[in-house]
């Protein structure tokens, strides 16, 4: 028994080593986002209000304590060297502690004598979009952030001519790495960060990175597929029929099998042709509607094999479901679509664009 167990474990463990086998921070963030979205839709404020107040209280507490601890310990400034309380008039000379710029409140200004570093620390909360530049080599890995030009007005800066390079503390570095699953050097554009602390830094004759703290990372929303309801035509005996233009195309395609005839058709049109072929048992035409690009492997290399297979007892419940179900054409992206047949059951019929950009039926259409 132990041998069997070991062998099975060994075999399965090997399959489970896939890099996708762990539940990543990115996936967790998706769960959080979906939970947040659902929570917002819940109208029961009586239930939510106490929790919200608790959250605000906790957040305020963390903010106050964090700010106090940060300012008392110099934690936020820790890597910067010797701390001096001497006022740095050169940075934001017209701004006093408590004043605001672009929605950020100035917390303190510092000058570090030995390093000739000037800093101005701000607190606030602002969404900034830009590019994460992640650099990894044998000895180190770090992420910096370069805001887009449009986002510069959301930062506590007064010179928009040059976007600052923003560095993060180690905790936020890890957050960025985990969220985007970074394992090698990469640039990730269009990232939106909610920043809640910002330190402007200046050093004479030297380009120096500003520093910020990330409150959270906003992940880009996934594109919603486009859905369009449609229905099929049936005669008095509940047999599927094609009408008008689609019927003409079917008849022409049946005799010529020329894909170009389908060029202007939508996925739902091609779907109807395929289903109509099923209805009249015209399996040669049906076979010709499958996608024929080289990257697809056909189980049935020839139409004869296909027809033989179709002769064997096969359920006709798909056609029946199509006749009875609510049909929706769903365009997932430019090259992928499916026909949702019974939404509740998740029954779908897949189509893809071929090399010529024509919608054809997937070899394994039912999903």
């Amino acid at each position: 028994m132990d041998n069997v167990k070991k062998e099975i474990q060994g075999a399965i463990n090997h399959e489970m080593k896939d890099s996708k086998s762990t539940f990543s921070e990115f996936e967790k963030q998706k769960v959080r986002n979906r939970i947040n979205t659902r929570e917002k839709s819940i109208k029961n404020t009586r239930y939510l209000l106490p929790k919200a107040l608790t959250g605000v209280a906790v957040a305020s507490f963390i903010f106050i304590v964090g700010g106090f601890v940060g300012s008392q310990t110099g934690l936020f400034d820790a890597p910067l060297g010797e701390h001096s309380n001497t006022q740095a008039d050169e940075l934001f000379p017209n701004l006093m502690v408590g004043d605001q710029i672009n929605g950020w409140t100035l917390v303190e200004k510092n000058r570090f004598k030995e390093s000739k570093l000037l800093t101005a620390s701000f607190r606030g909360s602002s969404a900034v979009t830009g590019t994460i530049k992640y650099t990894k080599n044998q000895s180190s890995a770090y992420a910096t952030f370069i805001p887009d030009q449009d986002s510069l007005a959301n930062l506590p800066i007064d010179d928009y001519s040059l976007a600052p390079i923003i560095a993060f503390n180690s905790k936020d570095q890890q957050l960025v790495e985990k969220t985007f699953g970074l394992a090698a050097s990469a640039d990730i554009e269009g990232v939106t960060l909610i920043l809640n602390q910002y330190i402007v830094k200046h050093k004479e004759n030297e380009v120096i990175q500003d520093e910020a703290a990330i409150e959270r990372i906003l992940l880009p929303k996934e594109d919603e597929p486009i859905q369009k309801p449609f229905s099929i035509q049936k005669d008095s005996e509940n047999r599927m029929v094609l009408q008008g233009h689609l019927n003409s195309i079917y008849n022409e395609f049946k005799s010529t099998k020329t894909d170009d005839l389908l060029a202007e058709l939508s996925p739902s049109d091609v779907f109807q042709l395929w289903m109509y072929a099923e209805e009249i048992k015209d399996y040669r035409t049906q076979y010709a509607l499958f996608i024929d690009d080289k990257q697809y492997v056909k189980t049935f290399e020839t139409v004869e094999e296909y027809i033989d297979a179709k002769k064997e007892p096969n359920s006709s419940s798909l056609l029946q479901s199509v006749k009875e179900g609510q049909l929706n054409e769903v365009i997932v992206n430019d090259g992928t679509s499916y026909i949702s047949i019974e939404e509740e059951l998740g029954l779908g019929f897949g189509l893809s664009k071929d090399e010529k950009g024509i919608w054809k039926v997937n070899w394994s259409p039912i999903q």
Partner: protein
Amino acid sequence: MNSRSNLETIIATTDDRSIVIECIMDEYGTVIKRLIFSYVKDWDIASDLTQEVFITCYEKLETFQQKSSFKTWIYRIAINKSKDYLKSWSYRNMVLNEKILFFKKDNNKGPDASIIDKEFSTELSKIIWDLPVKYREVILLYFYQEHTLHEISEMLTLPLSTVKSRLYRGQDRIKKMYLFSDRGEQHG
């Protein structure tokens, strides 16, 4: 034997579900994803379904009665979601198109295409993944995830005797196929 796990204590004593769900995701994220993969055989689908499991957990947390262990509860949710998926997509696919099933080289499209295209590391793993779900689930829960037969019986809501017989039959199939395919030469 009624001692609570740390997670069960957190669930019982913490009102804020968002904190609880973080703990649940930390503890069960990967193991649930792998469990679901063992059913659907596609990491992307496993990812989506795992997220669904945690959202369900979040929404139904108040219904967790602590009558069974939390592990059994969340496994049951994951197994049900996996089987629902198989019923709605793969099973229907197989039933309706058993004879006209085609596979696409691009493994992004279908759950089975991806696994069939994939080169398995060993013949044994291929045999295990090709087992019918009812045997595969018991084999993986017992040997890979190392649950007791009693736990598996609760997770699958099956009588203990059924779990035992499926485990036996699953092993028997593996042995026969493994001997036949991998060691056939040695045995002439």
